């Protein structure tokens, strides 16, 4: 028996000791009279720990008798090379009706033609029976600028899966402006159930950071759409993640944002909030707005956000909510592809705009209008390879508390393609975990040693 290498040792505001384990996502809190048990864990004095407490510590993964790193590696290799699951993210357009001040995406703008979409459908008709599960994602630009195409493709893929006995779910990142009730009904009936919609704080801060190209008040429209969905659509599996990109400019309104969210959506558990910092996603816009970037205060902000959300009883979407490996980048998986508006197959939506060799290696193939798929396997391999020793040593993965969440692949563009000197997500993930600990403590999501 030994301590897990993925334990975070901390304490809450009342001085009670806490251990969080990122392998299991479980958290144990020690009542003040049990501090000696906490010390026994820290000093490897396991034989001094009471039997019932040992059981709790083993069940939560804080104490283990397995080789965790190798177990995780096997787990991640299973995800990366899984043959049962196909994920396709479609970019029907790179145009957008917003001009967010930190966006990395630029023109000129394009849209997918019908015969390109039909090529994708033909490819799926020929190949879908190889899979047990298909996840269809929609991204952009703003995908709902091509809403007819989104409905057309999603409906056909759903019917294809139904006919072939394949589980099917679809998801979308959208600014929410075009997600009116009728559109939402059409999408949701075709199993497009997961939405990420960004609301950057209150009306005032949102409309400054995320202006519509013509309407100065995108906030009102988005909130109206979401309320219509909340009040009129009864589907238990619908999930709407309202993301706030926190910047130095909207940080001051976190409290108000959560109050407003609570008032409008707090009684519906299908609506949750997600916090992300504004960071340098690349592109010209962020160069002009560097003051927005908040990376160095992320821990403070995430903890504050989680504390406020917990006290206001607002549901927060956490990385661990989707299980271990949720921060494993989609591009690291063999059967995860991005289908661009022109029929190209890509691995990464960010790499579209990086320029240079990364942009070239990103284009791993093409699906033609007859549904034939052509893939450059050498380039594909670059995204999938897991050079364990080199990668683990370069980025310090082996003992990183984030490893159970990301498997060393939180951004394969950075690690495998650009070969960055350091892992930019290491500290970010650790900061998020600090926030998770606060949230769990305040919402009772922990096991107690008392």
């Amino acid at each position, binding site marked *: 028996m030994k301590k897990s290498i993925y334990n975070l040792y901390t304490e809450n505001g009342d001085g009670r000791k806490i251990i969080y384990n990122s392998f299991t996502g479980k958290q144990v809190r020690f009542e003040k009279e049990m501090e000696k048990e906490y010390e026994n864990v820290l000093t490897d004095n396991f034989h001094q720990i009471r039997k019932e407490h040992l059981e709790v510590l083993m069940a939560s993964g804080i104490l283990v008798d397995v080789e965790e790193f190798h177990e995780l590696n096997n787990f991640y290799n299973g995800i990366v090379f899984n043959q049962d699951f196909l994920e396709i993210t479609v970019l029907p357009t790179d145009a957008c009706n917003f001009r967010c001040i930190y966006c990395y995406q630029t023109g000129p703008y394009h849209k997918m033609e019908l015969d390109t979409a039909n090529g994708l459908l033909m490819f799926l008709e020929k190949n879908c029976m190889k899979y047990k*599960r298909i996840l269809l994602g929609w991204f952009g630009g703003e995908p709902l600028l091509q809403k007819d195409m989104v409905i057309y493709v999603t409906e056909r893929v759903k019917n294809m*899966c*139904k006919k*072939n*006995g394949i*589980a099917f779910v679809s998801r979308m990142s959208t600014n929410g402006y075009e997600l009116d009730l009728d559109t939402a009904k059409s999408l949701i009936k075709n199993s497009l159930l997961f939405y990420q919609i960004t609301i950057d704080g209150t009306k005032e801060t949102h409309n400054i950071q995320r202006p519509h190209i013509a309407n100065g008040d995108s906030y009102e429209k988005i909130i109206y759409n979401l309320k219509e969905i909340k009040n009129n659509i009864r*589907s*238990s599996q619908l999930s709407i993640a309202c993301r706030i990109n926190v910047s130095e400019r909207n940080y001051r309104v976190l409290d108000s944002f959560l109050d407003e969210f609570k008032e409008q959506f707090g009684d519906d558990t299908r609506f949750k909030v997600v916090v992300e910092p504004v960071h340098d996603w690349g592109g010209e816009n962020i160069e002009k707005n560097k003051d927005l970037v908040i990376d160095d205060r992320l821990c403070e902000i995430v903890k504050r956000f989680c504390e406020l959300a917990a006290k206001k009883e607002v549901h927060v979407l956490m990385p661990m909510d*989707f299980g271990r490996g949720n921060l494993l980048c989609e591009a690291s998986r063999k059967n995860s592809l991005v289908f661009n508006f022109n029929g190209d197959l890509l691995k990464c939506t960010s790499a579209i705009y990086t320029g240079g060799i990364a942009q070239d290696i990103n284009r791993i193939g093409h699906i033609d209008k007859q549904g034939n798929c052509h893939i450059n396997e050498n380039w594909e391999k670059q995204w999938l390879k897991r050079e364990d020793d080199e990668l683990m040593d370069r980025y310090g993965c082996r003992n990183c508390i984030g490893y159970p969440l990301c498997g060393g692949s939180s951004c394969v563009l950075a690690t495998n393609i650009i070969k960055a000197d350091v892992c930019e997500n290491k500290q970010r993930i650790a900061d998020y975990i600090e926030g998770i600990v606060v949230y769990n403590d305040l919402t009772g999501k922990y096991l107690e040693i008392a």
Partner: protein
Amino acid sequence: MNILETLEECFAENGIVINNMDEELELDSIQYISLVVTIEQKFEMEYPEELLGEKAILTFNKFYEDVKRINEIGVNQ
């Protein structure tokens, strides 16, 4: 509507094979969500939150009992 037959269709449409109605099903999140959505659409109902708990042991019979219960509540309302 024959609940049992319709429920069997829901499982088949999601590629979930039933060997034994009391056997614990191993469903990942996509299979689970897709199955629940199929059930909700075919039976024109909404699963109440209390029946969707994480800790529920999932068997075909559990889903069958849930659907019967929800249908009865719907008829009585």
